[in-house]
């Protein structure tokens, strides 16, 4: 079971703390998201969704269950059935013709659920919005975690999944991608 969290005085970790304890609706939403994520921390079922990728992201995702990475040791599993899935891992730039299939897959998953946009195409790179693609997954589905990379390596995918269930902190917020002169 999930550890008792500061977020639930009823003891149910799915409920947020009482509104008086939080400063803003944004904080309440974040606390709710985190407690949902924590529920999945020990056992998570993942469904993948290709919305138009070049197939490299899929190959890296397949390697998550390979011996070098072994997703199962973290309590994560793949499932083909959206009904059993907790997390939807979405690749590709969301081709417009794919919208309906993407929404159907997402809606077939029971709540609570998470969406992880995977790879540069899904995050707004490689393809600009045009008549063919949205260029990002975020216009069609509500995304919880964004994983950059082209393709993201299995290590980056592991990191992203662990961030999604709140087992690792997302550190990119504090990265500046700058260096002062003289370094390296």
């Amino acid at each position, binding site marked *: 079971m999930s550890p008792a969290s500061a977020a639930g005085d009823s003891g149910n970790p799915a409920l947020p703390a009482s509104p008086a304890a939080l400063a803003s609706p944004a904080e309440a939403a974040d606390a709710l*998201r985190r407690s949902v994520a924590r529920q999945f921390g020990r056992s998570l079922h993942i469904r993948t969704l290709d919305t138009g990728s070049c197939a490299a992201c899929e190959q890296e995702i397949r390697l998550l269950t390979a*011996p*070098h*990475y*072994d997703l199962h*040791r973290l309590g994560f599993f793949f499932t083909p059935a959206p009904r059993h899935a907790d997390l939807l891992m979405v690749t590709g730039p969301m081709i417009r013709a794919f919208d309906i299939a993407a929404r159907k897959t997402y809606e077939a998953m029971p709540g609570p659920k998470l969406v992880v946009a995977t790879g*540069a195409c899904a*995050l*707004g*790179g*490689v393809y*600009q919005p045009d008549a063919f693609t949205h260029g990002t997954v*975020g216009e069609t589905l509500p*995304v*919880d*975690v*964004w*994983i*950059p*990379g*082209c393709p*993201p*390596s299995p*290590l*980056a995918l*592991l*990191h*992203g999944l*662990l*961030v*999604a269930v709140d087992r*690792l902190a*997302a*550190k*990119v*917020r504090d*990265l*500046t*991608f*700058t*260096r*002062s*002169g003289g*370094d*390296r």
Partner: protein
Amino acid sequence: MPLWFARGLRRGVVTTRYPARPDPSAAELPTPPAFRPDALTRELADRLSLVCPSWALTRNGDVLIFDAGACTACGRCREAAPGAVTASGEFELAATDPAHLVKRIPLLGEGP
């Protein structure tokens, strides 16, 4: 299947210890750029924006906007300006908010 069992035992464990321990293979992965603000002129920023094939770089006034989510770590910006751009070495880039992936890099000389 004794054949496979014996082979498996002989093979040993290859599984990564990540996240408990860093994985050495990460050192060879391509990574997004790190910029030297003291080497980035407006002109260089414009040139880098054109060189990037993935729309990860745009100049807005005196700031170079870098979208680490759109970045494919292709290295073209690094090749165009090796003195101003190096590899960041970062691969743990997952974000819970897309805004956290967009960085504003100040350009040389001009005010904030």
